[in-house]
Protein backbone atom coordinates (compact mmCIF):
# COMPACT_ATOMS: atom_id res chain seq x y z
CA UNK A 1 0.00 0.00 0.00
CA UNK A 2 1.17 3.46 -0.82
CA UNK A 3 2.53 5.74 1.91
CA UNK A 4 0.99 9.18 2.42
CA UNK A 5 3.89 10.79 4.26
CA UNK A 6 7.30 11.52 2.75
CA UNK A 7 9.19 10.91 5.99
CA UNK A 8 7.63 7.46 6.38
CA UNK A 9 8.30 6.71 2.71
CA UNK A 10 11.93 7.78 3.20
CA UNK A 11 12.49 5.74 6.36
CA UNK A 12 10.84 2.60 4.96
CA UNK A 13 12.70 2.84 1.67
CA UNK A 14 16.07 3.16 3.41
CA UNK A 15 15.28 0.00 5.39
CA UNK A 16 14.29 -1.76 2.17
CA UNK A 17 17.48 -0.67 0.40
CA UNK A 18 19.63 -1.52 3.40
CA UNK A 19 18.49 -5.12 3.24
CA UNK A 20 20.33 -5.69 -0.05
CA UNK A 21 22.99 -3.03 0.07
CA UNK A 22 25.21 -3.39 3.13
CA UNK A 23 27.15 -0.24 2.25
CA UNK A 24 24.19 1.99 3.11
CA UNK A 25 24.67 3.67 6.49
CA UNK A 26 22.42 6.24 8.12
CA UNK A 27 23.35 9.09 10.46
CA UNK A 28 21.01 11.10 12.65
CA UNK A 29 21.47 14.12 14.89
CA UNK A 30 19.03 13.31 17.69
CA UNK A 31 16.04 13.71 15.38
CA UNK A 32 15.77 10.12 14.14
CA UNK A 33 12.28 9.85 15.62
CA UNK A 34 11.17 12.59 13.24
CA UNK A 35 13.36 11.99 10.17
CA UNK A 36 12.40 8.29 10.43
CA UNK A 37 16.06 7.36 10.60
CA UNK A 38 14.87 5.39 13.65
CA UNK A 39 13.42 2.79 11.28
CA UNK A 40 16.90 2.06 9.94
CA UNK A 41 18.30 2.15 13.47
CA UNK A 42 15.82 -0.53 14.55
CA UNK A 43 16.48 -2.69 11.48
CA UNK A 44 20.27 -2.39 11.31
CA UNK A 45 21.66 -0.96 14.58
CA UNK A 46 25.25 -1.56 13.41
CA UNK A 47 24.80 0.64 10.36
CA UNK A 48 22.97 3.51 12.02
CA UNK A 49 24.92 6.17 13.91
CA UNK A 50 23.40 8.50 16.46
CA UNK A 51 25.70 11.50 16.13
CA UNK A 52 24.05 13.58 18.84
CA UNK A 53 23.06 17.21 18.42
CA UNK A 54 26.08 18.00 16.27
CA UNK A 55 25.17 18.37 12.60
CA UNK A 56 28.55 19.71 11.48
CA UNK A 57 30.38 16.67 12.84
CA UNK A 58 27.69 14.33 11.46
CA UNK A 59 28.16 15.75 7.98
CA UNK A 60 31.96 15.51 7.95
CA UNK A 61 31.81 12.01 9.44
CA UNK A 62 29.54 11.06 6.53
CA UNK A 63 32.22 12.40 4.16
CA UNK A 64 34.78 10.11 5.82
CA UNK A 65 32.43 7.12 5.62
CA UNK A 66 31.87 7.80 1.92
CA UNK A 67 35.64 7.75 1.41
CA UNK A 68 35.74 4.20 2.73
CA UNK A 69 33.10 3.09 0.21
CA UNK A 70 29.97 3.52 2.31
CA UNK A 71 26.81 5.25 1.07
CA UNK A 72 25.93 7.52 3.98
CA UNK A 73 22.55 9.24 4.35
CA UNK A 74 22.58 12.15 6.83
CA UNK A 75 19.28 13.15 8.35
CA UNK A 76 18.08 16.29 10.04
CA UNK A 77 15.56 19.05 9.60
CA UNK A 78 16.24 20.91 6.35
CA UNK A 79 17.25 24.09 8.19
CA UNK A 80 20.06 22.19 9.90
CA UNK A 81 21.04 19.73 7.16
CA UNK A 82 21.89 22.55 4.80
CA UNK A 83 22.15 25.57 7.07
CA UNK A 84 24.10 24.33 10.05
CA UNK A 85 26.38 22.13 7.98
CA UNK A 86 26.76 24.22 4.85
CA UNK A 87 30.52 24.65 5.11
CA UNK A 88 31.08 20.94 5.76
CA UNK A 89 28.99 20.10 2.70
CA UNK A 90 30.71 22.66 0.50
CA UNK A 91 34.32 22.06 1.48
CA UNK A 92 34.56 18.31 1.54
CA UNK A 93 31.45 16.80 -0.02
CA UNK A 94 30.68 19.12 -2.93
CA UNK A 95 34.26 20.04 -3.90
CA UNK A 96 35.27 16.39 -3.54
CA UNK A 97 32.08 15.16 -5.25
CA UNK A 98 31.77 12.58 -2.47
CA UNK A 99 28.98 10.03 -2.43
CA UNK A 100 27.03 11.53 0.49
CA UNK A 101 23.23 11.76 0.54
CA UNK A 102 21.76 14.59 2.57
CA UNK A 103 18.16 14.58 3.72
CA UNK A 104 16.41 17.85 4.58
CA UNK A 105 13.36 16.72 6.51
CA UNK A 106 10.50 18.98 7.66
CA UNK A 107 11.35 21.41 4.88
CA UNK A 108 9.41 24.45 3.69
CA UNK A 109 6.65 25.52 6.07
CA UNK A 110 5.83 21.93 6.95
CA UNK A 111 7.06 22.29 10.52
CA UNK A 112 4.22 24.76 11.04
CA UNK A 113 4.31 24.98 14.84
CA UNK A 114 8.00 25.66 15.35
CA UNK A 115 8.06 28.93 13.40
CA UNK A 116 10.73 30.72 11.40
CA UNK A 117 13.73 29.05 13.08
CA UNK A 118 12.64 25.61 11.91
CA UNK A 119 10.87 26.37 8.64
CA UNK A 120 13.23 26.09 5.71
CA UNK A 121 12.62 28.43 2.79
CA UNK A 122 16.14 28.65 1.40
CA UNK A 123 17.52 25.12 1.11
CA UNK A 124 16.94 24.72 -2.63
CA UNK A 125 18.76 28.01 -3.24
CA UNK A 126 21.66 26.99 -1.00
CA UNK A 127 22.13 23.56 -2.52
CA UNK A 128 21.47 24.67 -6.08
CA UNK A 129 24.38 27.12 -5.88
CA UNK A 130 26.84 24.30 -5.11
CA UNK A 131 28.69 22.79 -8.09
CA UNK A 132 28.48 18.96 -8.26
CA UNK A 133 25.27 18.88 -6.19
CA UNK A 134 22.04 17.17 -7.24
CA UNK A 135 18.89 18.63 -5.67
CA UNK A 136 15.66 16.65 -5.43
CA UNK A 137 12.24 17.76 -4.22
CA UNK A 138 9.71 14.93 -4.69
CA UNK A 139 6.03 15.80 -4.98
CA UNK A 140 4.67 13.19 -2.60
CA UNK A 141 5.36 9.95 -0.75
CA UNK A 142 5.13 7.78 -3.89
CA UNK A 143 7.77 9.81 -5.63
CA UNK A 144 9.93 9.90 -2.49
CA UNK A 145 10.20 6.10 -2.51
CA UNK A 146 11.54 6.13 -6.06
CA UNK A 147 13.74 9.21 -5.56
CA UNK A 148 15.49 7.59 -2.59
CA UNK A 149 16.18 4.44 -4.62
CA UNK A 150 17.70 6.54 -7.38
CA UNK A 151 19.78 8.54 -4.88
CA UNK A 152 21.31 5.35 -3.53
CA UNK A 153 22.15 4.15 -7.06
CA UNK A 154 23.71 7.39 -8.36
CA UNK A 155 27.28 8.29 -7.57
CA UNK A 156 27.89 11.72 -6.03
CA UNK A 157 26.41 14.17 -3.58
CA UNK A 158 22.64 14.57 -3.51
CA UNK A 159 20.21 16.58 -1.40
CA UNK A 160 16.59 15.54 -0.94
CA UNK A 161 13.94 17.89 0.44
CA UNK A 162 11.06 16.28 2.34
CA UNK A 163 7.77 17.41 3.82
CA UNK A 164 6.75 16.68 7.39
CA UNK A 165 3.02 16.21 6.91
CA UNK A 166 0.53 13.65 5.56
CA UNK A 167 -1.15 14.40 2.24
CA UNK A 168 -2.51 12.42 -0.71
CA UNK A 169 -0.30 11.23 -3.55
CA UNK A 170 -0.50 12.88 -6.96
CA UNK A 171 2.13 10.76 -8.70
CA UNK A 172 1.97 7.17 -9.76
CA UNK A 173 3.19 4.49 -7.36
CA UNK A 174 6.30 2.60 -8.46
CA UNK A 175 7.28 4.87 -11.35
CA UNK A 176 11.06 4.90 -11.80
CA UNK A 177 12.59 8.25 -10.78
CA UNK A 178 14.83 9.81 -13.39
CA UNK A 179 17.10 12.62 -12.21
CA UNK A 180 16.63 15.78 -14.29
CA UNK A 181 13.37 14.67 -15.89
CA UNK A 182 10.29 16.81 -15.13
CA UNK A 183 6.98 15.00 -15.62
CA UNK A 184 3.82 16.37 -17.19
CA UNK A 185 0.90 15.46 -14.91
CA UNK A 186 -1.74 17.30 -16.92
CA UNK A 187 -1.59 18.40 -20.55
CA UNK A 188 -2.59 21.93 -21.57
CA UNK A 189 -1.43 24.55 -24.05
CA UNK A 190 -1.94 28.12 -22.81
CA UNK A 191 -0.28 28.26 -19.42
CA UNK A 192 2.40 25.98 -18.01
CA UNK A 193 2.52 25.62 -14.24
CA UNK A 194 5.84 24.25 -12.97
CA UNK A 195 5.40 23.06 -9.40
CA UNK A 196 7.55 21.21 -6.90
CA UNK A 197 6.96 19.31 -3.66
CA UNK A 198 3.64 19.78 -1.90
CA UNK A 199 2.67 22.53 -4.39
CA UNK A 200 2.31 19.98 -7.19
CA UNK A 201 -0.97 18.72 -5.75
CA UNK A 202 -2.25 22.27 -5.34
CA UNK A 203 -1.29 23.08 -8.94
CA UNK A 204 -3.33 20.08 -10.13
CA UNK A 205 -6.35 21.25 -8.14
CA UNK A 206 -5.94 24.78 -9.49
CA UNK A 207 -5.77 23.56 -13.08
CA UNK A 208 -8.95 21.52 -12.63
CA UNK A 209 -10.77 24.60 -11.41
CA UNK A 210 -10.03 26.50 -14.61
CA UNK A 211 -11.68 24.66 -17.52
CA UNK A 212 -11.75 27.90 -19.53
CA UNK A 213 -7.94 28.09 -19.57
CA UNK A 214 -5.84 25.25 -20.94
CA UNK A 215 -3.24 24.62 -18.21
CA UNK A 216 -0.34 22.20 -18.36
CA UNK A 217 0.96 21.04 -14.96
CA UNK A 218 4.58 19.91 -14.72
CA UNK A 219 6.04 18.24 -11.65
CA UNK A 220 9.64 19.42 -11.26
CA UNK A 221 11.12 17.06 -8.73
CA UNK A 222 14.72 17.60 -9.79
CA UNK A 223 15.70 21.19 -9.05
CA UNK A 224 19.27 20.53 -10.18
CA UNK A 225 20.41 19.51 -12.75
CA UNK A 226 17.86 21.32 -14.89
CA UNK A 227 18.37 21.35 -18.66
CA UNK A 228 17.21 24.55 -20.37
CA UNK A 229 16.26 22.60 -23.54
CA UNK A 230 13.82 20.43 -21.60
CA UNK A 231 12.12 23.42 -19.97
CA UNK A 232 12.04 25.35 -23.27
CA UNK A 233 10.42 22.39 -25.01
CA UNK A 234 7.72 22.14 -22.32
CA UNK A 235 6.72 25.80 -22.74
CA UNK A 236 7.29 26.30 -26.46
CA UNK A 237 3.59 26.61 -27.41
CA UNK A 238 2.48 28.30 -24.20
CA UNK A 239 1.63 31.91 -23.61
CA UNK A 240 2.98 32.18 -20.11
CA UNK A 241 4.47 30.35 -17.15
CA UNK A 242 3.64 30.04 -13.45
CA UNK A 243 5.95 28.47 -10.87
CA UNK A 244 4.77 27.17 -7.49
CA UNK A 245 7.06 26.24 -4.62
CA UNK A 246 7.08 26.11 -0.84
CA UNK A 247 10.33 28.08 -0.77
CA UNK A 248 11.53 31.63 -1.13
CA UNK A 249 10.79 32.93 -4.62
CA UNK A 250 14.49 33.83 -4.75
CA UNK A 251 16.83 31.05 -5.82
CA UNK A 252 14.46 28.08 -5.85
CA UNK A 253 12.21 26.64 -8.53
CA UNK A 254 11.10 30.05 -9.82
CA UNK A 255 14.70 31.15 -10.08
CA UNK A 256 15.76 27.94 -11.77
CA UNK A 257 12.95 28.08 -14.37
CA UNK A 258 13.68 31.77 -15.05
CA UNK A 259 17.30 30.94 -15.67
CA UNK A 260 16.36 28.05 -17.93
CA UNK A 261 14.10 30.32 -19.98
CA UNK A 262 16.31 33.40 -20.05
CA UNK A 263 17.21 32.99 -23.73
CA UNK A 264 13.61 32.36 -24.84
CA UNK A 265 11.63 34.09 -22.12
CA UNK A 266 7.90 33.90 -21.40
CA UNK A 267 5.86 36.08 -19.05
CA UNK A 268 6.11 34.53 -15.58
CA UNK A 269 4.36 34.62 -12.23
CA UNK A 270 5.90 33.20 -9.08
CA UNK A 271 3.88 31.53 -6.36
CA UNK A 272 6.14 31.07 -3.36
CA UNK A 273 7.29 32.63 -0.13
CA UNK A 274 7.75 36.30 -0.87
CA UNK A 275 11.22 36.77 0.63
CA UNK A 276 10.06 36.62 4.23
CA UNK A 277 10.66 34.16 7.05
CA UNK A 278 7.84 31.92 8.23
CA UNK A 279 5.95 32.03 11.52
CA UNK A 280 4.22 29.64 13.89
CA UNK A 281 0.73 28.39 13.19
CA UNK A 282 -1.62 25.81 14.71
CA UNK A 283 -1.81 23.84 11.48
CA UNK A 284 -0.13 23.43 8.12
CA UNK A 285 -2.98 24.91 6.05
CA UNK A 286 -2.94 28.16 8.05
CA UNK A 287 0.78 28.76 7.66
CA UNK A 288 0.60 28.03 3.92
CA UNK A 289 -2.37 30.32 3.48
CA UNK A 290 -0.70 33.13 5.42
CA UNK A 291 2.33 32.95 3.12
CA UNK A 292 0.40 32.80 -0.14
CA UNK A 293 0.85 29.08 -0.80
CA UNK A 294 -2.65 27.85 -1.66
CA UNK A 295 -4.59 26.57 -4.64
CA UNK A 296 -6.31 30.00 -4.75
CA UNK A 297 -2.97 31.76 -5.07
CA UNK A 298 -2.05 29.53 -8.01
CA UNK A 299 -5.46 30.17 -9.65
CA UNK A 300 -4.96 33.89 -9.18
CA UNK A 301 -1.48 33.74 -10.68
CA UNK A 302 -2.79 31.83 -13.72
CA UNK A 303 -5.58 34.37 -14.28
CA UNK A 304 -3.21 37.25 -13.90
CA UNK A 305 -0.69 35.94 -16.41
CA UNK A 306 -3.36 34.67 -18.85
CA UNK A 307 -4.74 38.18 -19.18
CA UNK A 308 -1.44 39.66 -20.31
Amino acid sequence: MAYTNQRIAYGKTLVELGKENKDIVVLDADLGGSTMGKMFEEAYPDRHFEMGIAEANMTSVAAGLAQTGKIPFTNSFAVFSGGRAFDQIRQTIAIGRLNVKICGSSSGMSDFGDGATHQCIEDMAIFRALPNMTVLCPADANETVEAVKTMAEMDGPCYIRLNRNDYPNVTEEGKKFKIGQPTVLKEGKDIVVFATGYMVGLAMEAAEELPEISVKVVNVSTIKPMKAEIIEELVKDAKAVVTAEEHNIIGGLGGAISEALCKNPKPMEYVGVNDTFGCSAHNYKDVLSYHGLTKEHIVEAIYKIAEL
Partner: protein
Amino acid sequence: MSYSKELVQSLENQAKALRRDVVVSIGVGVAGHIGGSNSSADIVAALYFHKMKYDSRNPKMRDRDRFLLSKGHVGILQYAALAEAGFFPVEDLKTTKEIGSYLQGHPDVRKTPGIEAGTGSLGQGLSIGLGMAMGLKLDEIDRNVYVLIGDGECNEGQIWEAAMAASNFKIDNLVAIVDKNGLQANGRTVDRMNSEDLSAKWASFGWNVIDIDGHNMEEILEALDTADTVKEKPTVIIANTVKGKGVSFAENVVGFHNGVLDETKYQQALQELA
Protein backbone atom coordinates in the same frame (compact mmCIF):
# COMPACT_ATOMS: atom_id res chain seq x y z
CA MET B 1 60.55 1.23 23.12
CA SER B 2 63.85 1.85 21.43
CA TYR B 3 64.62 2.75 17.86
CA SER B 4 67.80 2.23 15.92
CA LYS B 5 70.10 5.17 15.36
CA GLU B 6 69.89 4.53 11.61
CA LEU B 7 66.09 4.75 11.56
CA VAL B 8 66.01 7.95 13.62
CA GLN B 9 68.78 9.51 11.52
CA SER B 10 67.10 8.61 8.26
CA LEU B 11 63.74 10.03 9.38
CA GLU B 12 65.43 13.22 10.56
CA ASN B 13 66.99 13.51 7.12
CA GLN B 14 63.60 12.93 5.50
CA ALA B 15 62.11 15.69 7.63
CA LYS B 16 64.87 18.02 6.53
CA ALA B 17 64.21 17.09 2.91
CA LEU B 18 60.51 17.90 3.38
CA ARG B 19 61.40 21.31 4.79
CA ARG B 20 63.65 21.94 1.78
CA ASP B 21 60.88 20.87 -0.58
CA VAL B 22 58.51 23.27 1.17
CA VAL B 23 60.89 26.19 0.63
CA VAL B 24 61.36 25.24 -3.02
CA SER B 25 57.59 24.89 -3.48
CA ILE B 26 56.97 28.34 -2.07
CA GLY B 27 59.77 29.91 -4.09
CA VAL B 28 60.61 33.62 -4.17
CA GLY B 29 58.11 36.48 -3.94
CA VAL B 30 54.94 34.45 -3.33
CA ALA B 31 53.37 33.90 0.08
CA GLY B 32 53.45 30.35 1.45
CA HIS B 33 52.80 28.60 4.76
CA ILE B 34 56.36 27.95 5.79
CA GLY B 35 55.74 28.30 9.56
CA GLY B 36 53.16 25.57 10.06
CA SER B 37 54.79 23.31 7.49
CA ASN B 38 58.09 23.32 9.29
CA SER B 39 56.55 22.72 12.71
CA SER B 40 54.78 19.60 11.39
CA ALA B 41 57.60 18.22 9.23
CA ASP B 42 59.05 15.72 11.71
CA ILE B 43 55.63 14.22 12.46
CA VAL B 44 54.76 13.95 8.77
CA ALA B 45 58.13 12.34 8.02
CA ALA B 46 57.61 9.75 10.76
CA LEU B 47 54.17 8.87 9.39
CA TYR B 48 54.97 8.70 5.69
CA PHE B 49 58.43 7.17 5.88
CA HIS B 50 58.00 4.75 8.74
CA LYS B 51 54.64 4.35 10.43
CA MET B 52 51.99 4.24 7.74
CA LYS B 53 51.19 1.40 5.38
CA TYR B 54 50.32 2.52 1.86
CA ASP B 55 51.26 1.94 -1.76
CA SER B 56 52.17 5.05 -3.73
CA ARG B 57 51.52 3.17 -7.00
CA ASN B 58 48.09 2.14 -5.75
CA PRO B 59 46.87 5.08 -3.65
CA LYS B 60 43.38 3.55 -3.25
CA MET B 61 44.69 0.25 -1.86
CA ARG B 62 41.96 -0.94 0.49
CA ASP B 63 44.22 -2.08 3.30
CA ARG B 64 46.04 1.23 3.89
CA ASP B 65 46.55 3.66 6.72
CA ARG B 66 45.16 7.11 6.03
CA PHE B 67 46.49 10.55 6.75
CA LEU B 68 44.37 13.69 6.83
CA LEU B 69 45.86 17.15 6.94
CA SER B 70 43.14 18.96 8.82
CA LYS B 71 45.38 22.04 8.98
CA GLY B 72 45.09 22.06 5.20
CA HIS B 73 46.90 25.36 4.73
CA VAL B 74 50.20 23.47 4.92
CA GLY B 75 49.26 21.36 1.92
CA ILE B 76 52.75 22.01 0.55
CA LEU B 77 54.17 19.87 3.35
CA GLN B 78 51.89 16.95 2.51
CA TYR B 79 52.68 17.36 -1.19
CA ALA B 80 56.38 17.18 -0.33
CA ALA B 81 55.82 13.95 1.58
CA LEU B 82 53.67 12.45 -1.19
CA ALA B 83 56.26 13.37 -3.81
CA GLU B 84 59.17 11.99 -1.77
CA ALA B 85 57.09 8.84 -1.20
CA GLY B 86 56.63 8.37 -4.94
CA PHE B 87 53.00 9.39 -5.51
CA PHE B 88 54.15 11.96 -8.11
CA PRO B 89 57.39 13.58 -9.28
CA VAL B 90 59.25 15.84 -6.85
CA GLU B 91 59.82 18.34 -9.70
CA ASP B 92 56.08 18.98 -9.85
CA LEU B 93 56.15 20.57 -6.39
CA LYS B 94 57.23 23.78 -8.09
CA THR B 95 53.88 23.95 -9.90
CA THR B 96 51.98 24.33 -6.60
CA LYS B 97 49.24 26.98 -6.92
CA GLU B 98 49.85 27.50 -10.63
CA ILE B 99 46.73 27.67 -12.80
CA GLY B 100 45.93 24.11 -13.89
CA SER B 101 48.29 22.46 -11.40
CA TYR B 102 47.09 19.36 -9.60
CA LEU B 103 48.72 20.81 -6.48
CA GLN B 104 46.24 23.33 -5.09
CA GLY B 105 46.67 25.79 -2.23
CA HIS B 106 44.71 23.35 -0.07
CA PRO B 107 44.47 19.56 -0.53
CA ASP B 108 41.99 18.57 -3.26
CA VAL B 109 40.84 14.95 -3.27
CA ARG B 110 39.91 15.02 -6.94
CA LYS B 111 43.18 16.45 -8.18
CA THR B 112 46.05 15.02 -6.19
CA PRO B 113 46.99 11.34 -5.80
CA GLY B 114 47.30 10.33 -2.15
CA ILE B 115 44.94 13.00 -0.80
CA GLU B 116 42.17 11.26 1.16
CA ALA B 117 39.71 14.18 1.48
CA GLY B 118 39.53 17.91 0.90
CA THR B 119 40.55 19.89 3.96
CA GLY B 120 41.39 23.46 4.81
CA SER B 121 38.24 24.90 6.25
CA LEU B 122 39.61 24.38 9.74
CA GLY B 123 38.07 22.08 12.28
CA GLN B 124 36.65 19.47 9.92
CA GLY B 125 39.45 16.96 9.35
CA LEU B 126 39.03 15.16 12.65
CA SER B 127 35.37 14.46 11.86
CA ILE B 128 36.28 13.21 8.39
CA GLY B 129 38.96 11.00 9.93
CA LEU B 130 36.45 9.71 12.46
CA GLY B 131 34.11 8.75 9.60
CA MET B 132 36.97 6.90 7.88
CA ALA B 133 37.91 5.14 11.12
CA MET B 134 34.27 4.05 11.55
CA GLY B 135 34.11 2.87 7.93
CA LEU B 136 37.29 0.81 8.37
CA LYS B 137 35.84 -0.80 11.48
CA LEU B 138 32.60 -1.66 9.65
CA ASP B 139 34.69 -3.42 7.00
CA GLU B 140 36.92 -5.01 9.66
CA ILE B 141 40.02 -3.49 8.11
CA ASP B 142 42.62 -3.16 10.84
CA ARG B 143 44.28 0.10 9.77
CA ASN B 144 44.65 3.53 11.37
CA VAL B 145 43.57 7.03 10.47
CA TYR B 146 45.96 9.84 11.43
CA VAL B 147 44.68 13.40 11.54
CA LEU B 148 47.05 16.34 11.93
CA ILE B 149 45.43 19.41 13.43
CA GLY B 150 46.76 22.74 14.63
CA ASP B 151 46.57 24.17 18.13
CA GLY B 152 44.92 27.30 16.70
CA GLU B 153 42.53 24.99 14.89
CA CYS B 154 41.34 23.73 18.27
CA ASN B 155 39.42 27.04 18.50
CA GLU B 156 36.90 25.44 16.14
CA GLY B 157 33.88 23.92 17.88
CA GLN B 158 33.69 21.01 15.47
CA ILE B 159 37.00 19.65 16.80
CA TRP B 160 35.26 19.08 20.10
CA GLU B 161 32.15 17.62 18.49
CA ALA B 162 34.45 15.08 16.83
CA ALA B 163 36.42 14.53 20.04
CA MET B 164 33.19 13.77 21.93
CA ALA B 165 31.89 11.44 19.22
CA ALA B 166 35.15 9.50 18.80
CA SER B 167 35.33 8.58 22.46
CA ASN B 168 31.57 7.94 22.54
CA PHE B 169 32.03 5.32 19.81
CA LYS B 170 35.22 3.96 21.47
CA ILE B 171 37.14 4.47 18.23
CA ASP B 172 40.71 3.27 18.76
CA ASN B 173 41.95 3.34 15.17
CA LEU B 174 41.91 7.14 15.09
CA VAL B 175 44.97 9.13 16.16
CA ALA B 176 44.84 12.92 16.34
CA ILE B 177 48.12 14.80 16.38
CA VAL B 178 48.01 18.40 17.54
CA ASP B 179 50.87 20.45 16.14
CA LYS B 180 51.14 22.73 19.16
CA ASN B 181 53.43 25.43 17.84
CA GLY B 182 51.84 28.08 20.03
CA LEU B 183 51.13 30.53 17.22
CA GLN B 184 48.05 31.17 15.11
CA ALA B 185 47.64 33.51 12.15
CA ASN B 186 47.33 36.66 14.27
CA GLY B 187 49.63 35.97 17.19
CA ARG B 188 50.36 33.70 20.11
CA THR B 189 47.53 31.27 20.81
CA VAL B 190 47.59 32.14 24.51
CA ASP B 191 47.00 35.79 23.59
CA ARG B 192 44.53 35.41 20.71
CA MET B 193 42.31 32.59 22.01
CA ASN B 194 43.71 30.77 24.97
CA SER B 195 42.89 27.08 24.61
CA GLU B 196 44.98 25.87 27.54
CA ASP B 197 45.01 23.45 29.24
CA LEU B 198 44.86 21.63 25.91
CA SER B 199 45.98 18.23 27.19
CA ALA B 200 43.48 18.35 30.04
CA LYS B 201 40.71 19.27 27.61
CA TRP B 202 41.40 16.24 25.41
CA ALA B 203 41.66 13.98 28.45
CA SER B 204 38.32 15.24 29.73
CA PHE B 205 36.79 14.33 26.36
CA GLY B 206 37.82 10.73 26.97
CA TRP B 207 41.00 10.57 24.88
CA ASN B 208 44.29 8.93 25.70
CA VAL B 209 46.69 11.89 25.74
CA ILE B 210 50.43 11.68 25.00
CA ASP B 211 52.52 14.85 25.34
CA ILE B 212 55.77 14.94 23.38
CA ASP B 213 58.46 17.15 21.89
CA GLY B 214 57.23 17.22 18.29
CA HIS B 215 60.77 17.58 16.95
CA ASN B 216 62.20 14.62 18.82
CA MET B 217 61.97 11.72 16.38
CA GLU B 218 62.21 9.02 19.03
CA GLU B 219 59.41 10.57 21.04
CA ILE B 220 57.26 10.83 17.89
CA LEU B 221 57.85 7.16 17.01
CA GLU B 222 57.20 6.01 20.54
CA ALA B 223 53.94 8.00 20.76
CA LEU B 224 52.70 6.55 17.45
CA ASP B 225 53.51 3.00 18.54
CA THR B 226 51.96 3.51 21.97
CA ALA B 227 48.74 4.69 20.30
CA ASP B 228 48.45 1.23 18.70
CA THR B 229 48.37 -0.42 22.10
CA VAL B 230 45.52 1.68 23.49
CA LYS B 231 42.16 -0.01 22.98
CA GLU B 232 38.57 1.24 23.24
CA LYS B 233 39.54 4.91 23.13
CA PRO B 234 41.16 7.30 20.66
CA THR B 235 44.64 8.73 21.19
CA VAL B 236 45.77 12.32 20.79
CA ILE B 237 49.43 13.21 20.57
CA ILE B 238 50.08 16.75 21.73
CA ALA B 239 53.26 17.60 19.84
CA ASN B 240 55.01 20.63 21.26
CA THR B 241 56.71 22.28 18.31
CA VAL B 242 58.36 25.44 17.04
CA LYS B 243 56.65 27.23 14.20
CA GLY B 244 59.06 27.68 11.30
CA LYS B 245 61.46 25.07 12.78
CA GLY B 246 64.75 24.74 10.92
CA VAL B 247 64.74 28.18 9.28
CA SER B 248 66.21 30.59 11.81
CA PHE B 249 64.51 33.78 10.65
CA ALA B 250 61.09 32.10 10.55
CA GLU B 251 61.23 30.31 13.90
CA ASN B 252 58.52 31.56 16.26
CA VAL B 253 57.77 34.51 13.96
CA VAL B 254 54.05 35.12 13.50
CA GLY B 255 54.65 36.77 10.11
CA PHE B 256 55.90 33.49 8.66
CA HIS B 257 52.51 31.82 9.15
CA ASN B 258 52.01 32.68 5.49
CA GLY B 259 55.18 34.55 4.63
CA VAL B 260 57.02 35.71 1.51
CA LEU B 261 60.69 34.87 0.91
CA ASP B 262 62.94 37.27 -1.00
CA GLU B 263 65.92 35.87 -2.92
CA THR B 264 68.32 36.31 0.04
CA LYS B 265 65.97 34.64 2.53
CA TYR B 266 65.18 31.85 0.07
CA GLN B 267 68.87 31.04 -0.33
CA GLN B 268 69.48 31.32 3.40
CA ALA B 269 66.59 28.94 4.14
CA LEU B 270 67.92 26.34 1.71
CA GLN B 271 71.40 26.70 3.17
CA GLU B 272 70.19 26.18 6.72
CA LEU B 273 68.27 23.09 5.61
CA ALA B 274 71.16 21.65 3.59
